[in-house]
């Protein structure tokens, strides 16, 4: 426990100091935080509950559009803002910007949660591959639909409010970094405390044998929906932050980006080891570093390199980095191993 505390404080200090120690990497670090949030929350239903969802991108995109729309709509007519031919230029004052962002983020978290509840109620009856395929459609549909809604810019895209002129040039990067970092901390605390309750055991029971769980008197549907709603809450927040960070929302390429973000969040969780608290965090970090590295050193080949990485993960680390570590050093995970027993098992194999 003491060791853990040191670890947490260490990471917290690292997180707070990071933008000052590596000022050039603020954007990458902010994106890393968002990626970790997405992977960690995907893990709630994908890893702990065993429901592989490709649909979390729906909440992420929804959060992105909602946050930006609220931020603009609170002070200016939204339709005029997004209308491409508009001759008017609106500028947020710093107060307006931050107020709008705050309210926007709240909306960006709450609405996707409700949507997750409604959709979850109707589709969480599906299991296994059927659920995965169904959720795959959600993101695609959302992308196409939002691309046709004029008030949020349709195919023209939506330029989010530019960051107001406060202090130095670095203030934007610092603002978004700390926003995403503290959202990450919040997410981590929330997920960690959820994982220490009976709720996690129920999720695991659903994953391991849903029928048996039901037979034991657990209302599985209720917990499945709640699990997904928790994911949606944080995905929405992450989307809202990302929208402001990128500065431009496009329906299929930025918001409902199922082809990239939607797949990446699954990949990161699997890379790190799904069904663990730290797995998605490690997975997201490793993935992000690899990706940035590929982009720099394999220009034009980055997706080939990424493809190779995925193949390697699937073949050599089917249980993810955490799973691999656990197998190699079970003692470090607090598991008591009887050497004789282990040897016997190896021989049996």
């Amino acid at each position: 426990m003491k060791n853990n505390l040191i670890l947490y404080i260490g990471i917290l200090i690292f997180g707070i100091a990071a933008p000052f120690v590596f000022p050039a990497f603020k954007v990458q670090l902010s994106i890393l935080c968002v990626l970790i949030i997405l992977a960690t929350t995907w893990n709630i239903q994908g890893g702990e509950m065993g429901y592989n969802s490709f649909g979390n991108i729906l909440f992420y995109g929804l959060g992105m559009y909602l946050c930006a729309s609220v931020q603009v709509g609170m002070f200016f007519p939204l339709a005029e803002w997004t209308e491409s031919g508009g001759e008017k230029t609106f500028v947020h004052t710093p107060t307006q910007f931050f107020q709008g962002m705050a309210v926007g983020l709240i909306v960006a978290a709450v609405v996707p949660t409700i949507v997750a509840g409604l959709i979850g109620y109707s589709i969480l009856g599906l299991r296994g591959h059927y659920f995965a395929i169904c959720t795959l459609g959600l993101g695609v549909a959302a992308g196409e639909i939002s691309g046709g809604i004029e008030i949020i810019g349709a195919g023209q895209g939506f330029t989010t409010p530019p960051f107001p002129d406060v202090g130095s040039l670095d203030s934007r990067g610092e603002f978004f970094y700390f926003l995403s970092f503290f959202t990450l901390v919040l997410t981590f605390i929330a997920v960690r405390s959820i994982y220490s309750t009976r709720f996690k055991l129920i999720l695991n029971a659903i994953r391991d044998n849903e029928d048996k769980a039901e037979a034991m008197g657990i209302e599985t549907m209720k917990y499945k929906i709640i699990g997904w709603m928790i994911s949606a809450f944080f995905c929405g927040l992450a989307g809202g932050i990302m929208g402001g960070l990128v500065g431009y929302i496009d329906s299929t390429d930025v918001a409902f980006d199922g082809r990239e973000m939607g797949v990446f969040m699954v990949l990161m969780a699997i890379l790190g080891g799904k069904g663990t608290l730290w797995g998605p965090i490690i997975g997201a970090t490793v993935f992000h570093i690899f990706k940035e590295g590929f982009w720099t050193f394999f220009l034009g080949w980055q997706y080939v390199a990424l493809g190779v990485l995925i193949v390697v993960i699937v073949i050599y680390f089917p249980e993810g980095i955490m799973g691999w570590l656990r197998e190699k050093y079970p003692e470090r995970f607090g598991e008591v191993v009887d050497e004789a027993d282990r040897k016997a098992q190896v021989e049996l194999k």
Partner: protein
Amino acid sequence: MKLSKIILSFVSALVILFSTSVVSFAKVVGDKIILGAAISLTGKYSSNGVHTQNGYNMAVDRINSMGGVKVGGKTYKFDIIYYDDESNPKRAAQLAERLISQDGVEFMLGPYSSGLTKAIAPVTEKYGVPMVEANGASRSLFTKGYKYLFAVLAPANLYLDVAIDLAVEKNNGKGVTVAMAFEQDAFSQDVRLGVLDAIKRTGSKKVIDDKLPKELNDMAATLVKVKQMKPDVLVVSGHTKGALTAIRQISEMKVDVPMLAMTHCDAAKLSKQHGKNSQYALCASQWHKTLTYKDDFFKDGMTYDADFTKEFGYAPPYQAAESSAALLVFKDAFERADSFDQKKVRDALAATNMQTFYGNIKFAPGGQNVDKPMVLFQVMCDDGGKCENKVVAPTKWASAKLIHPIPSWSER
């Protein structure tokens, strides 16, 4: 818990990795002026991204070999740092940030497409980095009050409104019926707005107004409607893929329409890929080799065309020409500013008033080029099946007469 040890060592490894990978360039190293550009080398805009890159490279080589840029009595050469934005706005914004804050680039060249330019512009604006872009035509780029964005091209809403005017003129000044099919992206939707304005202005009527998905591969549903409604004009815009898809399916389905107006015909090498099937298509273009503009570096359009073809093995579409022009603009601005101060260069850019092989360049306060009209060309084929793009409007540049209406498929 020993697990924490693993994670601790992991975190420290991360720290080391980050701290060793900070490599910083300056904007001007030795005798080099380093420009940054995020280009779509992969993804849906990759073919146009390559045209853009070839255009940039061609101009860099040419300017460097012809004496470079003279600033403060010293001669400098251009160099460009490229990144691949994967045709993704999110990635493009990230790369702009990276070029500026990590690579220390102080002057940028634009990416390909309006959407990506829209994503990058807020970043360059924030850092006060002058960006000359050659491939972001969306009107909304120029109404945001950006001070550091300069586009050498005419805005997207001017692409095809001329076609509507032409059709009305051929209809003895009476309004025409227009069928529209536009991809859902920033550029095409802006072209659509321009066409809508023209429809309103000329008292025409829109009969079909379809939005097509990105990475356009099929527009049969729209074409079925066109067959039924028989509009006077069919307008299609969806980058290179849109142009290719339209011609392929129009010829397959034998859709007869008196006028077919499109964008991106030359980038899609329509006349080469589809030969006679693409005949009579009317295309909006920022540039055509037969235009008689001149400059010291590329001489004129015909010479540029020949030199480009020699170097890259295909005829330059306007996307390449305008990209080359962007560097000429930068060179001119650096020399007039006689400094590498971003503000001074920006002011020099704003005061640009020059002629290049690609056209006249003069920026409005919004950053768009107001001194260069669009041209329309029509794909025309001889009996041997050899097709060529010939300028038909505006009349000042026309090298051929517009063929209107398009003969029906049964007569071809």
